[in-house]
């Protein structure tokens, strides 16, 4: 079907459209406000005195979406699977897609986890789906662009004149900002600039370091749990290893040192899991906004495709790493395992 679409006439039209956008972007006819990058998620409302940030709010929406999808997808499964006819058991539509995802994750956990797969699978599948939908949520239209107009607190940020509820590309002058700041009360507190920036209502949860750090902590704590489950309390001799002393003092010291390295590497796992996911998705978001600022509308498209791919890959990598860590914890460093 694609071959029939790629005719010289269609290609010509496509090139003309792209040319129009590139030229008008370069001439400055199409303008997008300079990106306002905020590393921390901004609070959008308060529950009592607890600030609810846009990333937290979006993660609630993602959770709701996953629950609704699961309920809708499993409605057709007959209660009594043994007695059901083959017609009722064949999945279709949403249930089919969900079964594909479940089979994918299940095969992976069986391949890496071995006979521990039934215990790893629920946690790992939850992590995978939650991270995947969180990553992809940031790419939906409206996420990151619709929000509250606020004066920026930092005067060095370029702010824009607002035309009613819509932010224009007209920069608010810094001189005007300073004038606003000086004409108000002279108590020495900083005042926002004269223009506005957008504080979005929704923001991909994975762009909030709190979210990724929480997931990383949960994963590493679960590895300790699975280690104790498999090897008993003897699991902790991985970190405090006195067995080297049987072969002499030198071996003993080396064993102790290796134990300390193992402990440090647990913390390194937390940090690397958190920052890998955060960095990839946050940097992708910043990249999309900056590319849109440079040449609007057209050049963002390949990067959009890249972000879709990166979102899936980061979720997949989180899945693989969790499985590998869980598996390593249950194996123990001697290669033996108890049940």
């Amino acid at each position: 079907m694609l071959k029939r679409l790629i005719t010289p006439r269609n290609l010509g039209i496509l090139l003309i459209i792209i040319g129009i956008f590139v030229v008008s972007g370069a001439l400055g006819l199409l303008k997008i406000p300079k990106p306002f990058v905020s590393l921390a998620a901004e609070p959008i409302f308060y529950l009592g005195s607890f600030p609810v940030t846009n990333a937290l709010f979006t993660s609630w929406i993602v959770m709701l979406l996953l629950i609704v999808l699961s309920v809708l997808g499993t409605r057709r499964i007959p209660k009594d699977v043994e007695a059901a006819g083959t017609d009722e058991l064949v999945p279709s539509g949403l249930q089919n897609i969900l079964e594909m995802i479940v089979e994918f994750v299940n095969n992976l956990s069986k391949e890496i986890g071995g006979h521990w797969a039934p215990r790893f699978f629920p946690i790992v599948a939850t992590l995978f789906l939650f991270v995947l939908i969180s990553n992809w949520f940031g790419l939906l239209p409206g996420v990151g662009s619709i929000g509250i107009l606020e004066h920026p607190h930092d005067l060095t940020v370029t702010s824009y004149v607002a035309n009613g509820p819509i932010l224009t590309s007209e920069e608010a002058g810094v001189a005007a900002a300073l004038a606003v700041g000086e004409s108000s009360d002279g108590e020495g507190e900083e005042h926002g600039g004269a223009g506005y920036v957008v504080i979005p209502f929704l923001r991909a949860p994975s762009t909030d370091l709190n979210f990724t750090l929480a997931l990383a902590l949960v994963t590493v704590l679960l590895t300790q749990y699975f280690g104790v489950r498999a090897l008993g309390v003897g699991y902790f001799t991985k970190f405090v290893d006195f067995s080297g002393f049987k072969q002499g003092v030198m071996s003993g010291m080396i064993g102790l040192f290796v134990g300390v390295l193992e402990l440090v590497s647990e913390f390194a796992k937390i940090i690397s899991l958190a920052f890998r996911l955060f960095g990839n998705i946050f940097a992708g978001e910043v990249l999309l906004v900056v590319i849109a600022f440079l040449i609007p509308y057209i050049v963002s498209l390949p990067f959009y495709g890249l972000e879709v791919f990166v979102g899936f890959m980061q979720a997949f990598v989180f899945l693989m790493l969790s499985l590998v860590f869980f598996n390593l914890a249950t194996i123990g460093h001697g290669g033996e395992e108890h049940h």
Partner: protein
Amino acid sequence: MEVLGLKALGAGLAIGFGAIGPGIGVGLLGSKAMEAMGRNPEVIGDIRTNMILGIVFAEAIAIYALVVALIILFV
């Protein structure tokens, strides 16, 4: 020197030097994967999957450098 100028310099250096290592790493991964695919065309799919996995891990280091650059610029 003004703080803003130093910030920009710091961010540029952070991501500039930080991307050298992962760039070389991804190149090595890709070249070895190509070699392996050439020697054994049967398992191209498996090799490709594992190559992508390896590339994602190497990219993560570049992403750490990018996060540091963004923190320097915007925090």
